[in-house]
């Protein structure tokens, strides 16, 4: 796209400048760390019984699928300079709806499809409610979705009657645990959805308009952009994708855990978006980056378990990795490093700009 990439060196420069480049580097580093502990960490085997690849990498891909879903939804919402804190709760609602439905439905393909459709419909409606609160009622996105985050788990509890409902349906289970071409179906589905959403926003004018309202809502409104409609759409999409994530998460164990499913995943999604180079201030967004971010989060989760970091120290470990990553990405730190490298200490010239 950009034309200052001349030759391989230019290309490399271009790649390094991408915000999510450091996300990729972090993933590689984490894998290397794991490799030093267990030289066979990256080895991938073949399981003849179900015709699937097996190995840690495959596990990471499978674990990344739900995070990818909520991350790209979150990415679109953040681009409008909003935020969706309810993604984790929508996941548990979708899980509750599908499990509750399947518990009573026959173990057939049609039953699985009906459960899927119902779960996604409910999720999209919850997203739409978020959108209405934000764009029609005019509440702040943080508050609106915080309400939904708190209410969501309650709604899920009502749906299952307070139980952690389990169900049996082989087709439904296949979504999360099946394999296609040796890869987990759940990852392939997630990837397909990412590509689909990417095409939707970039091939239509949706992406441009989302960026416009995220950067400058006033100017975008006067340019004729329908902010209300866009926000409704974006929050609905986020709800829908969270529903998909919820189905992924519950289908793997065929149980919805009211208190654990999707718990605190909104934080993972926000982190994935930020790691991917989308500013929380809104505007320019990067779905590829958000996907890389989601993969990093999944890798990190697996690494923590693999290294045997005690569960009480897990959040701290995660935090350290992410703080370092964000520091590397921040313009100010980069500038600091650069100026140290070139001229020793150059006085910061940004401060002098008028108040």
């Amino acid at each position, binding site marked *: 796209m950009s034309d200052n990439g001349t030759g391989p060196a230019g290309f490399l420069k271009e790649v390094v400048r991408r915000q999510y480049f450091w996300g990729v580097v972090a993933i590689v580093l984490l894998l290397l760390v794991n490799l030093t502990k267990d030289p066979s960490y990256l080895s991938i085997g073949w399981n003849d019984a179900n015709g699937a690849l097996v190995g840690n990498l495959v596990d990471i891909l499978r674990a990344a699928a739900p995070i990818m879903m909520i991350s790209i939804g979150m990415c679109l919402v953040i681009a409008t300079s909003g935020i969706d804190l309810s993604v984790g709760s929508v996941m548990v609602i979708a899980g509750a709806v599908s499990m509750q439905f399947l518990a009573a439905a026959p173990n057939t393909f049609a039953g699985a499809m009906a459960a899927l459709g119902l779960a996604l419909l409910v999720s999209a409606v919850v997203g739409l409610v978020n959108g209405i609160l934000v764009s029609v009622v005019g509440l702040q996105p943080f508050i609106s979705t915080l309400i939904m985050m708190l209410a969501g788990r309650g709604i899920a509890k009502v749906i299952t009657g307070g139980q952690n409902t389990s169900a049996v349906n082989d087709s439904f289970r296949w979504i999360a645990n099946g394999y296609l071409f040796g890869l987990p179906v759940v990852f392939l589905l997630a990837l397909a959805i990412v590509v689909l959403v990417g095409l939707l926003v970039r*091939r*239509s*004018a*949706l992406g*441009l*308009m989302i*960026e*416009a309202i995220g*950067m*400058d809502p*006033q*100017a*975008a*409104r*006067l*340019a*004729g*952009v*329908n902010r209300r409609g*866009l926000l409704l759409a974006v929050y609905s999409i986020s709800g829908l994708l969270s529903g998909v994530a919820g189905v992924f998460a519950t289908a793997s164990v065929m149980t919805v855990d009211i208190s654990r499913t999707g718990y605190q995943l909104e934080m993972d999604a926000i982190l994935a978006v930020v790691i991917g180079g989308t500013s929380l201030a809104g*505007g*320019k967004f990067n779905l590829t980056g958000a996907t890389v971010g989601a993969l990093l989060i999944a890798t990190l989760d697996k690494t923590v378990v693999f290294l045997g970091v005690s569960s009480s120290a897990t959040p701290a470990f995660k935090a350290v990795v992410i703080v370092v990553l964000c520091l590397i990405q921040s313009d100010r730190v980069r500038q600091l490093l650069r100026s140290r490298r070139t001229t020793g200490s150059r006085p910061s010239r940004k401060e002098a*700009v*008028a*108040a």
Partner: protein
Amino acid sequence: MSQSPIVEMKDISISFPGVKALDGVDFRLFPGEVHTLMGENGAGKSTLIKALTGVYRIDEGVISVDGDVVQFQGTADAQEAGVSTVYQEVNLCSNLSIGENVMLGHEVRGRFGVNWKATHEAATKTLRKLGLGHLDPRASLASISLAMQQLVAISRAMVTQARVLILDEPTSSLDSNEVEQLFSVMRQLRDEGVAILFVSHFLEQVYAISDRLTVLRNGQFVGEYATGELDQASLIGKMIGKEITALRSLDSQSAARGHRQDAETVYLARGLGRKGSIEPFDIELKRGEVVGLAGLLGSGRTELARLIYGADRPDSGDVEIHGHKVAVHTPAAGLRRRIAFSSENRRDEGIIRDLTVRENLVLGVQAKRGWARPLPRKQVDEIVDKYMVELGVRPSDPNRAMRNLSGGNQQKALLGRWLATKPDILILDEPTRGIDVGAKAEIQEQVLQLAAEGVAVIFISSELEEVVRLSDRIIVLKDHRMIAEVTNGPEVSAETIVKIIADHSTEQNAPVARAHKTKEVAL
């Protein structure tokens, strides 16, 4: 008026990167006077106020309070010296009670912390002094009108023992009764010896309340006058920088264009208005004519334009476009009706700084088509090429971010965005403000060209000469109301417009108490 000024600012200069905001300005404020700071937008009024309140550091010059030279490092220093400011937007805490707001930071303290009873009593005493005894200090601030809040803000300034009170456009959102109430409080404070610095765009109000005026223009000091000795026409002349004689010499040049009065009516509004924004007005736009809106800043020019486009929702009136009755309540609706509106606030309401020039150019067309029908790349290229060349946008690389362009080129690109939507009605609000002479001429030429092609153009500018030069008809506004409509001709000049504004006295709006009768100037 006592002998020595309480505030004296001498030879004040303040520079921002690339601009000299104040250039050797003098200002004196005496105890017991209401002194109005006059000037068009960007003249340096607010910069001067911010220098006096310690928000900006001065580069050159001396500020003395009570004869002592002071150097304010921040607003706290200024308050310490007795300089208090009440801004246009009331900056009180609406979640606190009236009394708490009045006494904030000066609560009466007892042995067990704040003594709320005594605090509220003290608040009542202050309020009563300003004739606000009917207010319950325990009521929430949000429960009273904006005007009352403004008066509460002034009471608060009194608690801090302010000897200098700065009122920056306090009347812009008040109705005439509320203005009168504010003025009576101001007069009372003045009589007690408080020096009041007042800023307002309403000429009638300025004449009703102020004792003296200081006029600024382009960051420079024009003069200090006693209000009674300067009539409105001369004042306007000084603000816009043309002496009356100079104004007379400028002739209208549009007569030669000869717009046909029998052209088809594109747009017709009857009684269109919005409470608190602009009084109901009638307007008719014909194919291929340029209608200029003239009036001082804050006269309602922008508000009128916004109602036509649908940027604000009108609360009265009917609109017909091409003879069909329609409702234009949102910008998107305006765009669909082939109306385009280029805002005066280019930075915040016009361009989108972080998008590329290319994206900025097609945004209007794209919004009109809806998200689901993206413009094909070929068509985008066509639009971009066409308007980059036709309007001479430089640099010519459309993939640069808009923020990297100069003001003039941003304006041209913005014009391109609106032209690309193929409007029947094009509203340009201050399209030539803050851009260089060359770009200005190009935009003016473009306006005439568009009119020749059949677009009805509404042209708004603070520069009256420009309005007179380009317009077929001129609509004159004052104090948020349409006061006259002038068909342009050889005998019409900027001076004619100034005279209309100066002579029109909006009695029903203006507080009458000390109104100076506007003297007619022999022109």
